[in-house]
């Protein structure tokens, strides 16, 4: 098992490098970040030339990639402005933008291998700090949504499987297909329209429309919990539909298996048969589903976070994409890629742990 894990980790390294090369290349093709992002148009061309060079954008492309990985504190650039006359005598026209020709200013970045993901062009702050701001918010939403999805998805799926083709099963089936066929933004906006706008109109207690905390409040836990409801609902609705269908199908298959008939013949209680024997076997594939969902949630729910103004990774990603902030986008992509690899590996390990039939060599 240990050998298997080590082998998988080693296999993942070239995969991650390949992913980063692809993303790096795509971002470079998308144009000049200084031109595309919301840079003040009144910042002079000379200042922009300095910033571009300081950010390493004047370096050859392969070197930029190496700097991103290994940093540039071992590399020197010509960054000193040739502006002495300008400072000494205010009547002399400044020659800012002309560098002094000496390649003597070392870079300051350490590279991602040393934990430095660079400076966000938009926020002018280290990328790690920006992500540290957002990741906890995404984890709050993601963990709530995932827990809700698993609990309700499994419960509904089991109930439907135990009473196949009953009224409950038919209702669940219909709702599942309806929910599954709706885009998430529609679910989110409908939920807000009904549970916030209409509930208020009808004089009922209504849910907040957006944000993590009440703007007039004191950022308390109850504010957070109440504001989690609609985003969680929007995120979980489709997944609950998927999980419940999945569990229903695998439970039906398990219930009609020979070993369940044997269990019944041995006189086990129905509850024990369903929860211990049938559900245990029916839930194995759930591990794969959850392992695939966690990295997706970690990457943030782009649509949900945008609609609900939830300051998480998804909103950060969409803002960074809109404003072309490569350091953030590269770090974000790497984070998601690493988590996909990690959780897939974890799923394989958990499989081996819960299912004695699975053995890795």
């Amino acid at each position, binding site marked *: 098992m240990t050998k298997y894990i080590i082998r998988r980790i080693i296999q993942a390294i070239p995969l991650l490098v390949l992913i980063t090369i692809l993303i790096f290349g795509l971002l470079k093709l998308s144009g000049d970040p200084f031109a595309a992002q919301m840079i003040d148009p009144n910042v002079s061309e000379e200042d922009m030339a300095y910033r571009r060079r300081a950010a390493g954008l004047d370096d050859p492309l392969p070197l930029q990639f190496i700097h991103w990985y290994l940093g540039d504190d071992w590399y020197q650039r010509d960054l000193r402005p040739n502006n002495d006359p300008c400072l000494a005598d205010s009547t002399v026209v400044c020659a800012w933008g002309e560098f002094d020709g000496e390649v003597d200013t070392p870079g300051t970045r350490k590279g991602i291998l040393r934990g430095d993901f660079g400076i966000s062009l938009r926020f002018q702050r280290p990328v790690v700090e920006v992500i540290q*701001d957002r990741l906890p918010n995404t984890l709050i939403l993601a963990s709530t949504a995932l827990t809700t999805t698993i609990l309700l998805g499994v419960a509904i799926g089991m109930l439907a499987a135990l009473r196949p083709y009953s009224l409950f099963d038919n209702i669940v089936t219909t709702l599942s297909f309806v929910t599954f066929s709706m885009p998430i933004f529609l679910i989110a906006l409908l939920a807000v329209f009904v549970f916030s706008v209409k509930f208020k109109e009808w004089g009922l207690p209504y849910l907040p429309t957006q944000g993590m905390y009440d703007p007039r409040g004191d950022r308390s836990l109850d504010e957070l919990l109440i504001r989690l409801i609609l985003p969680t609902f929007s995120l979980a609705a489709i997944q609950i539909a998927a999980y419940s269908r999945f569990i229903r199908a695998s439970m039906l298959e398990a219930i009609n298996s020979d070993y369940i008939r044997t269990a019944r013949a041995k006189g086990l209680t129905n509850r024990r048969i369903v929860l211990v024997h049938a559900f245990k076997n029916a839930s194995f594939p759930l591990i794969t589903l959850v392992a695939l969902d966690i990295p997706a949630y970690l990457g943030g729910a782009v649509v949900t976070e945008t609609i609900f103004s939830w300051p998480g990774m998804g909103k950060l990603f969409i803002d960074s994409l809109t404003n072309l902030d490569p350091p953030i986008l590269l770090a974000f992509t790497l984070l998601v890629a690493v988590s996909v690899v990690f959780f897939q590996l974890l799923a394989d390990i958990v499989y081996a742990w819960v299912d004695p039939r699975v053995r890795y060599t």
Partner: protein
Amino acid sequence: MKKVTRLTLVSALIISALTLMGVFSTAAQEESVLVIGFEQEPPNLWPLNTLTYGGLAESFYSRDLWDWDVNREIYPIMVTEIPSVENGRIAINDEGNTVVTITLREGMLWSDGMPITAADCEIWHTIRFDRSTSTNVSRNAYPDVVLDFSIDENDPLTFSITYSGTFPDVLVAPEKPECRYPAHVFGPMIEDGGILEDSPYFVGGMDFDGLKTVSYGPYSLAEWNIGENMVMVKNPNWDGPEPAWDRIVIPFITDSAQMRNALTVGEIDVAFGWSDNLQPDYAAIENVETIAIPGVYSDALWIRMGEIGNSDEHGGTALMDPRVRQAIAHAIDRRSLAEELVAPGVMVPTSWYPPSLWPEDLPFLEYDPELAAQLLDEAGWVLNEDGIREKDGVTLDNLRFVTTENELRNNYQLFIQEYLAEVGIGVDIQIIPATTLFATFSDGGTLTNYQWDLAIFANSANALAPTSYDDYKCKGIPSPENPDGFNPWQFCNERYDELDALIATTLPGPERDALVEEAVRLHWEGFFWHGLRLRATWFAVDTTVVNPESVANYTGSLASNWFNQIEYWEAAS
């Protein structure tokens, strides 16, 4: 299975309880709070950040030496009086350079209690003048046009700035004097060779301490929760009118539907900057009033008036005749179109220049189809048997009428097509991507390559200075020799060019006013620019929280000073 059912019931109960908790907790607040939704979060708060939302956020906690009100009238804030030629504070020295002398009001304090003096203005001068202090400051031409800064030896509140040559728009130019940032915060850092980028002043995030944002304004920036909101609190050292609310919270709500929802349920009190077509939706919200503040952009009908681009297929030389261009304006009921297509009360401008510069007798070309027909007849373009204007075998039935993909402009095109048809002019409507329509001559732009006759788009005038652009000068006409020129309408008037040069080198006063008036008239008499609507900045305010009249009266009408008189906004009575 009963347990599962019970679990479901308990979950439902918990959710209901939390819902009630949320509703009741919202109700129990004592501190007065105004919540203003921002559609975008400022990326940062760099000095003189001219990005709209950076400037908007800054306008809560930072005030200039002077500013402009909703009518674009200048008023003093930090100065004893507005510098002018009359009061001797704007003068030309012996070397022919412009000297501006400013005296700060006594007793002003920064938000941390330190006094404001001319030394604060000097540090900001140093930052703008010396490029090595930051690469992220909007300097414009400051280092190139400013020659000297000096503080009065006898008065620590008085300072002078010397500008190169005659610099008449010293009060309105981006290079105008400023005292935005405190010397006691930035001085030591700059003296130690540090740069502004090192300062925590301008960035938000986990370690952001709003109190470091020492400023002079009715509020102080207390919190900036990146991605979520900004919180302004009353500045105890502000000596102006006391603001009506203890706190202002600015949540960032990027989804426009959610902005309306938030206003509907009372989570925010003010939404602004939304597009014209949303006015009915906002107006329909209970207890919400919509307010239009005139902006700086005007959508207009442009006419290609020059010879280049003429062809018999598209009306020959018809548009070169000013009577035809004037007739087109009279043929269209622009006021009704603005009322019906945009919103009631939308202003239809008379001139491209800002209203404050219009001569009192500058007429608006009112809807008058009979006069339009008469002008066309006088120009020799008479109706043929098909009801189309015709002259020397050339018909006016195929003028190329272009605009961008924009629902409102496309609707305008359709209505204008009908109005023009009534006087015998036919147009061929074309919708062209903005990147092609506005591209330069060498990039094959539709306008710059003269593949048009009529067009709808917006072009802003300088909101405060009376100077014009090359877009209206002879040297701006695009050609292979001048591929970057953007005067595709071909307005070319040597006197106008001369006037603009004179305006740029004449100090404010009666002489300059006369020059400006003449320039505005010449521009208007070209009849190549017919205003369709002055774009407004829309506000939607919850009338149970804010007095809407105070918003209408105390809101800036420039690009990013919409909250520059927030201290005058009143709570609903």
